[in-house]
């Protein structure tokens, strides 16, 4: 997949101006990172991101745009085969819930408030919770 042989290799471009805020690259800092809730309990992994024009328009091209939602959902199947699940199937977590980004992305709210954890809650209530001793601390 190499393109445009003519671009000579040793090009060095001018350095971008230092930015007023922290720099986050999607793939390097956000995508596929662990998402932890306010008690540092893992909620899910960030599968995708959603951006909107600052005015809220879904098509962000042509004007300033911002990151609005972290997305999570049944991505593995489509990721392996390519493409992505329809956007209706993706669970949205607003950026306003995010309290920190370091080796994991940390939310300021409790995991149970998010739909992303309904599978966990279902397995807990219907499978693990049913087995005796499931709700006690290991000793």
């Amino acid at each position: 997949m190499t393109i445009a042989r003519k671009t000579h290799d040793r090009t060095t471009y001018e350095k971008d101006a230092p930015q007023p805020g922290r720099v986050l690259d999607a793939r390097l800092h956000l995508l596929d990172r662990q998402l932890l809730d306010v008690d540092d309990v893992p909620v899910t992994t960030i599968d995708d991101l959603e951006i909107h024009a600052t005015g809220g328009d879904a098509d962000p091209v042509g004007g300033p745009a911002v990151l609005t939602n972290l997305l999570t959902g049944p991505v593995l199947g489509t990721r392996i085969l390519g493409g992505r699940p329809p956007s209706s199937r993706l669970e949205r977590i607003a950026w306003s819930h995010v309290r920190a980004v370091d080796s994991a992305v940390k939310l300021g709210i409790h995991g149970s408030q998010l739909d992303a954890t309904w599978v966990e809650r279902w397995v807990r209530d219907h499978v693990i919770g049913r087995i005796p001793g499931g709700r006690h601390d290991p000793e």
Partner: protein
Amino acid sequence: MILSDLLDQPVREADGTPVGYVIDVRFVLDGPPVGPLATPRVHGVLVSPRTGSSFMGYERVDVRSPALLARWFAWRHRGTFLVHWQDVAAIDEDGVTLARDARRWAPGYERPAPA
């Protein structure tokens, strides 16, 4: 827009000549704070002429070790450049089209002091 519709897409200049692939999208946290953190503004897209998938970010950060590995990854992604978001003219099914006089910037960025 869902970001994975943008990542790995081919990139063309205004006159149609292909220049590479989108390997990442850069945000800068300098928008109005809607929650504990500032809103991430879409600052630009990172384009690599060689391969669609960026790998471990070696081409952007100043991680120099382990030496052999770092040099090999950086070599593989040489020529990666940043295009500001306002220089992105259009995004459609067959890829990203840059504005006519789109400026190219170095992919590196100021690293926060080690934790």
